């Protein structure tokens, strides 16, 4: 068998290509080239038949991946209290905006300090301590907002503006003794001075765009100048939007068993979706 040495022309994606169901279609005696080609194709097909081509499956089985185990305390830690509503769940506002939820979680040094603080007597519960730290953060943020010193990105150390007496006054409703509040405030202020930024993640400004340190993440993206703005269209539960949805599903057609979809008659899509209504009759 001689080696094919021609170079095919680059494939034109707009050109319609014949779909060849069987190699017999291309067998003819006209030119020696075609015979040679069809011979090669037949040989290739035979080879194909002999070698069971399952490259993707084989590869998948061969890719070893790290492992996992079941956590034995899971069923105890996560309660069975979820009741799925019959309608699809709609987002409520972010928890931060609703204001009640304590977004801060004690970290290692907080816990260690608290254990020390509570050595002789259980003065402060972890939950209370956590809530106090959270409120101190929020109060300090508000103080900085009022002073107009909130920066959009992290350039320089962020100092504490909240003073002890202002904190005590705002936290009167927390029903915590002054001495305890003073200790917590002192601990929090010292931690803030070490960290040089808020300890509540939501309040930490992102790194500046020109920060090249690869370990720093979530820089603000420069907004490209756009002529058109896109907005998210919130789905309304009305007849109009469901009608639109129905029209869309008429065009996006499932193939076979609802698994993959294709667009039916893409060139028939016109400005007015309603024109496709008569095509719906031909759907099945």
């Amino acid at each position, binding site marked *: 068998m001689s080696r094919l040495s021609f170079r095919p022309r680059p494939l034109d*994606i707009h050109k319609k*290509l*014949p779909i060849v169901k069987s190699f017999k279609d291309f067998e003819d005696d006209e030119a020696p080239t075609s015979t040679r080609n069809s011979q090669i194709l037949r040989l290739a097909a035979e080879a194909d038949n002999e070698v069971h081509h399952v490259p993707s499956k084989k590869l998948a089985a061969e890719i070893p991946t790290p492992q996992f185990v079941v956590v034995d305390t899971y069923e105890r830690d996560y309660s069975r209290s979820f009741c799925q509503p019959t309608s699809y769940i709609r987002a409520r506002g972010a*928890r931060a905006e609703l204001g009640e939820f304590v977004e801060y979680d004690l970290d290692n040094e907080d816990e260690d300090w608290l254990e020390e603080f509570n050595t002789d007597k259980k003065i402060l519960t972890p939950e209370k301590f956590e809530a106090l730290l959270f409120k101190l953060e929020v109060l300090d943020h508000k103080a900085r907002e009022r002073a107009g010193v909130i920066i959009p990105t992290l350039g320089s150390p962020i100092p504490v503006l909240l003073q002890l007496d202002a904190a005590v006054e705002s936290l009167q409703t927390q029903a915590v003794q002054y001495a305890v509040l003073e200790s917590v405030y002192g601990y929090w202020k010292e931690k803030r001075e070490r960290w040089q930024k808020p300890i509540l993640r939501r309040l930490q400004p992102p790194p500046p765009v020109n920060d090249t340190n690869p370990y720093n993440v979530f820089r603000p993206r420069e907004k490209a100048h756009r002529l058109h703005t896109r907005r998210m269209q919130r789905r309304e539960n009305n007849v109009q939007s469901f009608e639109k949805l129905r029209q869309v599903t008429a065009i996006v057609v499932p193939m076979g068993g609802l698994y993959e979809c294709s667009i039916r008659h893409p060139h028939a899509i016109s400005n007015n979706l309603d024109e496709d209504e008569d095509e719906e009759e031909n759907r099945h």
Partner: protein
Amino acid sequence: MGSLDPPSNSQGGKALIHDDDDENHRAASDVRSELSPAANDSAGTPTENDSSKRRKSGVLPLEVGTRVMCRWRDGKYHPVKVIERRKMSSGEPNDYEYYVHYTEFNRRLDEWVKLEQLDLDSVETVVDEKVEDKVTSLKMTRHQKRKIDEIHVEGHEELDAASLREHEEFTKVKNIATIELGRYEIETWYFSPFPPEYNDCTKLYFCEFCLSFMKRKEQLQRHMKKCDLKHPPGDEIYRSGTLSMFEVDGKKNKVYGQNLCYLAKLFLDHKTLYYDVDLFLFYVLCECDDRGCHMVGYFSKEKHSEESYNLACILTLPPYQRKGYGKFLIAFSNVMLLYEIAYELSKKEGKVGTPERPLSDLGLLSYRGYWTRVLLDILKKHKGNISIKELSDMTAIKAEDILSTLQSLELIQYRKGQHVICADPKVLDRHLKAAGRGGLEVDVSKLIWTPYKEQG
């Protein structure tokens, strides 16, 4: 037998493998020839064990870049390269742990190993001679060739050498080794850039609903008492049986979006968290039960993509892999794309989608399977001729992806002066079988969703 002292003139460092990044490859001297087996130790006649031990201790501690055989979790020895090392607190001079990369496998298997897992007899001493690379016919050193082969094997082809090196530099060692997320404790695959406060720990505990992460189990348990979230924040846009899809806007749920990125990065290699989550949408796939909606995987999508990427990152969490969720995510992202096209009507004819590159090895497999199924289904039924462009219009798959898929399956042939598409039903069926059928179906009647819409 008495204990053996290490040789006073420690030659271990010098004798070992040179730095990979060093352009001028020095020929490394042969360790074994320097430690003469004829030397007597204090115990008298040298036994094979003694000289072998002396030889082995001579190479310690291993230098970064050393190649050696290492016992993996399957009990067998595999070739590794030492990426990093750290002294153990015991203070013994040669008491180190080594962070190794298994050269046959992806970087996700990299891990810290103990000295006893390494076969010191296999420490490589290589004279870096020039060999010819068969693919490119270039002459290069064996070292350079091996590096290229490894890059090729691991699926890094799409990154150029410079970015690859840069990427590997700061991500070379996993920081977090294990996480607890809901029901599972999972070994991580890659480095993730958690805030510096988390540099000192190797295990993190995640709340499985809001994805807050903590360093101690007690902290998570305390968090669970107050956290009332039982599903991802955001709108549920799909529900079929126990499967639900939630759409989360990175702008409205910033901390959640960031937490999800930190978590996902543990299992994705070439992605970065360079930019903030505001401009992304996250589609979180969940299995629901009476404890809540548990994330099994997700994909992210830019709100506006310049390069017509319809998908940025895609991940099925390790405990849920090989169950069809990945296929579902791909199919779902494509249905969304088709909806976008349908909504935008003729203004966007020819709109296509493609996943952001680089794709991971698992990602490419999944996509190839998806493209194969969609395209071959059409080819089986289609009558008459068809152009690649038409296939693209019907499926919203990018022409390049269609071409590469058909070419990799060898379905495009050039004969009689033109290209043809081979659609022998037996051949197609074999490819379809290999691509894998089944998996979870996207029931479009259960999708209630409106894509972003252009205004003005």
